[in-house]
């Protein structure tokens, strides 16, 4: 029998892998992919808790998260393209206009 903690550990692993991607990728699109992984890990958590506690809210929340993620990806990629048009690069290391 697979318990709740198995799912949670799985989700934590995926989350950490996503974080690793966010921290190490140079390409802005690559960073976005890492964020997708992290959001998926969160979704797994939500669904697992909902299922094990018999609570519908987690499922609803997952639906919302998925929808919002789609919007976020769409807007994020649009921004990446806009930046690319201007700077001719999507290398996150060179997008440092905010440097102090």
């Amino acid at each position: 029998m697979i318990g709740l903690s198995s799912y949670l550990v799985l989700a934590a692993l995926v989350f950490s892998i996503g974080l690793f991607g966010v921290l190490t990728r140079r390409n802005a699109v690559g960073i976005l992919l890492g964020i997708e992984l992290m959001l998926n890990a969160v979704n797994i958590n939500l669904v697992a808790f909902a299922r094990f506690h018999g609570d519908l809210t987690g499922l609803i929340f997952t639906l919302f998260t998925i929808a919002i993620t789609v919007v976020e990806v769409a807007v994020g990629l649009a921004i990446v393209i806009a930046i690319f048009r201007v700077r001719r690069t999507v290398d996150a290391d060179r997008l440092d206009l905010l440097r102090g």
Partner: protein
Amino acid sequence: MTVETVGFWLVAAVLLGSSLAVVLTPNLFHAVLYLAAALVATGAVFLLLDQPFLFAVQLLLYAGGVVTIVVFAIMLTERLVGERIRQTSRHLINGAIVAAAVFAGIAGFLLQAPPAAPRPEQTGDVTASIGRALVGPFAVTFELLGVLLVAGLIGALYFARSEE
């Protein structure tokens, strides 16, 4: 060894493997394909948790929508640059340490957590319950989500439009 147990380990292996591939493969296009695999595996996890509706949503929206958008974006930027975008990474060690530390932190909480109650039996039709909840207590949130989607659509169009 029940079917469920075998399924879980199988899905978990696929999910973790494809996730690692997403963050490690040098080819951006391949990374997107691996992401698609990871998203499908996540959907499979939902299926294991008796949520076929969410599985469907995951497949349609994520694996279908998101991956498609990302592929478009990559192909668009590659077209503009006129060359293949190589995906490179940096500070691999630092990233690994921090990520491992975060995992250790979460795992620390998980180990201390009291043993969870056994999985209750699924009762009734969950999909119908979700539908009722969406037009019932969560109706306003649901509508706001629609507004958000429209705003996101317009915003994405605005950012991505070509200069005239």
